[in-house]
């Protein structure tokens, strides 16, 4: 019968007394862990997908929307831009732009977005092929690790794309007629690449022509003639019709801190029909919004934590009144003041520990429910059962709070006057 067991027996003898304390404590720990986990994983998600992109160029609209759509593949595009208007960006001798990746978006496959782009986007995002080869021809696709896993796609598999970026269920989907063929599957990279279907920009034009001119036999024939033929590698975008449209450009600067680079977005925004968005700025705006929300929640959590600590304190304090005689008895049986102090401290710490464990289960339970929903809407893959080092510190803090809440009752227990208590009756 060591002290820990004695404390445990005391607590479980009247479990309802401790229940409220445990639940409040679990609630506060759970909320803290939830906030920390969400924040941490959101930050990582943002950081992993920065891909060294200095500028996003697209159609006029909201710069935040453009950034989120082009870099994170969340939300809607601001519109399309004509190739002719952005040809200058592709010039290898451009004084500011070092490199550029064109994006065409708008179609999807069972909830996963199809992105028309060039293979160098993989290098930008630090992703690599897990198997197969890169897309070279129209209607060849390389699928992200998650897409392949969820929809059981293997090399050589074919599928039809859906018009639109949201999976609206079997009946509401408008399918394009053309078959895409999986030629490669990406290795998991922890970036948004895991969740994309990649193909050429030109594929978008072909599939939309086919869609727009459905029923036109000649167009159909034209398609069959030119689809999936090994000798037809898409021409450089620069050689395509300047009237053709893409959605946006991801841009890397030669020297991001140069004076010209700093003024570049403003020049574009003021002098052209294009929108240039600085992702670093847009993301810091998102983070700022996040921060202020988190501050408010943080205050709420602090209040709950204080109340839960108080509840531990009150529960111990009132149980001491009932147990005065018991404590005096322990003294007559040879337990010193130190042991009584420790006995009560341990009760506080046990409550805190149980609360901590329940709290983590609560927060990670919520995360795993969220993970299922969030992945579709936000291209945001949560790892619900990942424990953070912060949560280790949270345990230390929880034990500290358990200790602090118990320390006054424990001192009182240690100072029990045996003789007075025993003669009270």
């Amino acid at each position, binding site marked *: 019968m060591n002290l820990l067991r004695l404390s445990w027996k*005391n607590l479980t003898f009247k479990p309802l007394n401790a229940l409220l304390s445990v639940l409040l404590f679990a609630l506060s720990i759970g909320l803290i862990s939830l906030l920390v986990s969400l924040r941490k994983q959101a930050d990582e998600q943002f950081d992993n997908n920065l891909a060294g992109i200095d500028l996003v160029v697209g159609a006029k609209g909201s710069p935040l929307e453009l950034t989120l759509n082009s870099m994170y593949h969340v939300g809607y595009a601001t519109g399309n831009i004509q190739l002719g208007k952005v040809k200058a960006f592709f010039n290898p001798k451009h004084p500011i732009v070092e490199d550029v990746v064109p994006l065409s978006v708008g179609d999807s496959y069972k909830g996963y977005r199809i992105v028309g782009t060039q293979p160098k986007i993989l290098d930008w995002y630090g992703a690599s092929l897990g198997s197969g080869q890169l897309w070279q021809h129209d209607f060849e696709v390389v699928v992200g690790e998650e897409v392949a896993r969820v929809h059981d796609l293997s090399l050589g598999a074919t599928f039809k794309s859906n018009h639109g970026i949201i999976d609206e269920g079997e009946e509401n989907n408008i399918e394009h007629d053309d078959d895409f063929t999986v030629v490669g599957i990406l290795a998991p990279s922890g970036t948004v690449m895991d969740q994309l279907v990649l193909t050429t920009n030109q594929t978008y034009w072909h599939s939309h022509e086919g869609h727009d001119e459905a029923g036109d036999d000649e167009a159909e024939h034209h398609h069959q003639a030119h689809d999936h033929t090994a000798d037809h590698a898409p021409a450089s975008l620069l050689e395509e019709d300047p009237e053709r449209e893409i959605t946006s450009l991801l841009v890397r600067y030669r020297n991001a801190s140069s004076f010209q680079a700093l003024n570049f977005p403003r020049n574009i925004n003021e002098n052209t029909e294009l929108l240039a968005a600085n992702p670093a700025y847009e993301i810091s705006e998102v983070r700022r919004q996040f921060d202020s929300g988190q501050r408010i929640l943080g205050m709420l959590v602090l209040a709950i934590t204080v109340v839960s600590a108080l509840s531990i304190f009150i529960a111990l304090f009132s149980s001491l009144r009932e147990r005065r005689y018991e404590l005096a008895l*322990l003294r*007559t*049986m040879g337990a010193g003041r130190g042991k009584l102090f420790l006995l009560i401290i341990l009760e506080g710490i046990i409550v805190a520990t149980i609360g901590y464990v329940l709290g983590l289960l609560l927060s990670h339970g919520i995360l795993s429910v969220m993970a299922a929903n969030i992945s579709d809407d936000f291209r945001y893959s949560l790892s619900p059962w990942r424990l953070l080092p912060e949560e280790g510190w949270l345990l230390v803090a929880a034990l500290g709070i358990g200790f602090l809440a118990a320390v006054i009752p424990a001192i009182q227990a240690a100072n029990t006057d045996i*003789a007075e208590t025993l003669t009270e009756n």
Partner: protein
Amino acid sequence: MLTSKDLSFQYPDGERFQFPDLSCGAGETRLLLGKSGSGKTTMLQLLAGLRRPASGDVIINGQSLGALSGTALDEFRGKHIGMIFQTAHFVRALTVAENLRLAQQLSGKAFAASRMYGLLEQLDLQHKANALPGKLSVGQQQRVAIARALINEPAVLFADEPTSALDDENTAQVVSLLTEQAKMVGATLLIVTHDNRLTSLIPQQTRL
């Protein structure tokens, strides 16, 4: 072995007690008698080291209680003194057996199951080992308290009005158990009481 010399005690409210000297041998049983308010319980607490005397000293098994302090006194009490109170109190969350085991462990001795079950059997409590003390009758509770006081084979056994809550039958049983068991472990037994049923049973008496 229990001796006391020149014991006196001063309550903060000014009430002062002067107590007679005591000297009891091992295995001796003695009654400490007095009207209520005569300071019987106070003297018992001084003898058990639960209070500090204003003057004088108590010596148990050659150890002066005045020379011990704090944890050392608590430990000495756990090892060498057994106490029985008017109403039996226990750690309510623990079973009878666990309460006895706790007493054994708090005294710093190793847990001896045979000693515990032997005692419970002698006190006719073997079937109550796993019951919570709160579920026992008053007489049974007092017997468990006796078992707890005896489990460490103390040098001195103090009983403070152990029979005042019991009927005649239980009183006779408890007194005979107390004296018997104290003899078996060679403990000095000091019973503080104003219960006249005991005076005829125990000839050695000190009056306050």
